[in-house]
């Protein structure tokens, strides 16, 4: 049954059960670590760290196996097509994850905050916090003692001060990097390996600059603007949306770094470079999310 058209089905594998074990440790480790936050002596973080070690270890072996199997020519075109569908639907699931947070932001801005401010004579909320006035960003929260609002927000300053505004540089980084990775892929397809490698290095550098600037922004928010996770709904949506996006940029940058290292090691051919292509799709995805995010979190 080893004709060219046969579909490779691995006989059996120890990887999935180890991965499931890693995830079990993760649930127990993350649950106990977070429940023990603020306690004097707790060593549950050891469990969490162990789970990360297991998960990353299994992923390393798993991806190595897949690469080796591909290099041995065990994968048919049909199987490669399965990877394409798999990655596409995985990215769709990520889109829907972000959708939940965008939905939360939209609902809060369109309904919760105006209603809390007494819109449409919804009397009950006005009785609870009669002084609250609905504005966005919410700088003074309804219960401002428990959730002290931020002193400053992250909104876009006037067009002349654009260069002082970190998200502007961040947008520039990410949009440019989406272009440079396209150039890297195009170079690889033409067999220009030197250009491919250089564009990859440019791309991941821009990615890490983005992460650094985002970190700087968070530092500014906490140190100078009173904008924290506890600063009411504005801080909540700001940090969760930008935070999950930043986390995905980190993941994307790690993926692309690995692809670059593999590229330097001679991996990928003109026609067979799905690992890189998948990483590049992922990178375009975080870019698109960022553009939406800039519009609804920072600009409007």
């Amino acid at each position, binding site marked *: *049954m080893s004709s060219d*058209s*046969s*579909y490779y*089905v*691995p*006989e*059996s*594998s120890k*990887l*999935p*059960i180890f*991965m*499931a*074990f890693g*995830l*079990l440790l*993760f*649930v*127990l480790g*993350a*649950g106990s670590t*977070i*429940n023990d936050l603020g306690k004097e002596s707790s060593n549950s973080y050891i469990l969490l760290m162990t789970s990360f070690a297991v998960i990353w270890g299994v992923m390393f072996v798993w991806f190595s196996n897949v690469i080796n199997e591909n290099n041995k020519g065990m994968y048919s075109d*049909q199987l490669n097509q*399965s990877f394409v*569908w*798999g990655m596409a*639907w*995985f990215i*769709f*699931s990520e889109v*829907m*994850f972000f*959708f*939940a947070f965008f*939905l*939360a932001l939209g*609902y*809060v801005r369109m*309904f*919760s*905050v105006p*209603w*809390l401010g007494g819109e449409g004579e919804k009397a009950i*909320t006005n009785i*609870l*916090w009669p002084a609250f006035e609905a504005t966005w960003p919410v700088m003074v*929260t*309804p*219960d401002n003692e*428990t*959730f002290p609002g931020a002193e400053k927000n992250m909104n876009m300053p006037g067009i002349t001060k654009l260069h002082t505004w970190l998200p502007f540089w961040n947008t520039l980084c990410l949009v440019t990097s989406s272009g440079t990775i396209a150039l890297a892929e195009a170079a690889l397809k033409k067999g220009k390996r030197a250009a491919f490698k250089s564009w990859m290095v440019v791309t991941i550098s821009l990615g890490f600059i983005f992460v650094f600037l985002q970190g700087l922004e968070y530092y500014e928010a906490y140190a100078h603007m009173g904008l924290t*996770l*506890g600063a*009411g*709904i504005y801080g*909540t949506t700001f*940090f*969760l949306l930008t935070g999950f996006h930043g986390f995905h940029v980190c993941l994307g940058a790690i993926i692309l770094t690995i692809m670059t290292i593999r590229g330097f090691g001679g991996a990928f051919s003109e026609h067979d470079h799905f690992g890189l292509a998948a990483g590049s799709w992922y990178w375009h995805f975080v870019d698109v999310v960022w553009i939406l995010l800039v519009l609804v979190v920072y600009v409007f």
Partner: protein
Amino acid sequence: MSAVIEGHHDDHHHGPAKGITRWLYTTNHKDIGSLYLWFSFIMLFIGGAMAMVIRAELFEPGSQIVSPEFYNQMVTNHGLIMVFGVIMPAFVGLANWLIPMQIGAPDMALPRLNNLSFWILPAAFGVLLATFFMEGGAPNFGWTFYAPLSTEYAPPTVTYFIFAVHIMGASSIMGSINVITTILNMRAPGMTLMKMPLFVWSWLITAYLLIAVMPVLAGAVTMMLMDIHFGTSFFKAGGGGDPVLFQHIFWFFGHPEVYIMILPAFGIVSHIIETFSRKPIFGYDSMVYAIASIALLSFVVWAHHMFTVGMPIAGELFFMYSTMLIAIPTGVKVFNWLSTMFKGSLTFETPMLFAIAFVALFTIGGLSGLMLAIAPADFQYHDTYFVVAHFHYVLVPGALFSIIAAVYYWLPKWTGYMYDEFMGKTHFWLSFVSVNLTFFPMHFVGLAGMPRRIPDYAMQFADYNMIVSVGAFLFGLSQLLFLYVVLKAIFYGKKATGQVWEGAQGLEWTLDSPPAYHTFETPPNLEAGEAKG
């Protein structure tokens, strides 16, 4: 085609490994299908035992057996286990067993990922059940875990619950990616989309729904985690957030989830009815379009679960009408099933009995759903036993009956042995009578105002509740009979033929019973007429 298999292969490349490692390391869709189905069966008895505790407590008014706190834990975990641990894994198990055989594929598209999707489930449910023995007890906020019950007032074990839901979601997403990829990429040559068996169609759309909404659930529990432990105010009005936001996000996941638990049932019932009517399904195309319309509509009806929480009148109207629209494609399906049976050469083997009961009883659940969709009427029905009756009618004689029917229908194919028809029919009639005894009176007490999720009730509901409890105990016992029938078939059943059922159509029936460990390693060519689709 490699159809000459006796089941005792020592050839390393074609037979299963020996011992426990076969199940731990397997990448075979048939093994993984069996794992899912047995997992689901075990969870059915665990979740069922919780239902028995609930019904024992409600046997009489007053507080007798368990404390109200424990009662809440029972209600919550009964719901979570039945939804995420029984119905969903059973459908995934059926998908694993059947989709590759029905489309002529050698296995699922991503076999190792497939095994991972399964083994996450015992981990997630192990943690969930372990919370019963932790400080503060198990989750007690209902399976819908509304904030602030699940945030500010939750037991500390909610953190484990959140992460368990995360990995459960990961399992569902990976499983669905696998199903979609298999269906889109692995069909035998000549099997165009509109020639696919309806079970495959129903799963294609279900998998799409799962990938669309499980991440939203992950988002919801992540927001809970942040609110509980990191000071954010998604669901806290004091910070400018809104507890109602939780319900919107939850039901944006929750309503498609409801269809995730019924669409594969539509596929199963279509196959069974056409087989035992000895006629092809009536209106195949309209069946496909109906499933697709139900799936698309499911994204715009979520707030009908929340008519009483406060919504602009335009919202109430929109969600009321959009919900009623769903009756149209669903009606198309019901009438197509009836038309398939019309003038067919009907026989009533056990799978057919369950399938017909499905059509009748699911329709009852659908009609009470229409009543609930009427916003002004829902103000009266909301959170009463009428709602409990409604969703149990679509989930127990609906989804669960379809799974039982599927097991009877395909068990001879999977194991190579026939079940005992007399025992199967006994199981059916016991289940049919007791399921109605359990859930029908709930309509009456619900309309009369008995609230759900409360361990005690007013005296005037006592008689009906006693009947309900008796029905529930009988239904629980009947499922032990089901276990017996399955085990008896596996160990003492008569040999089944490859065709099994006279009227059965489809690629899986062209294989031996049981099929070889690896089937369709070379895809059958449907265009050449090698097998009928």
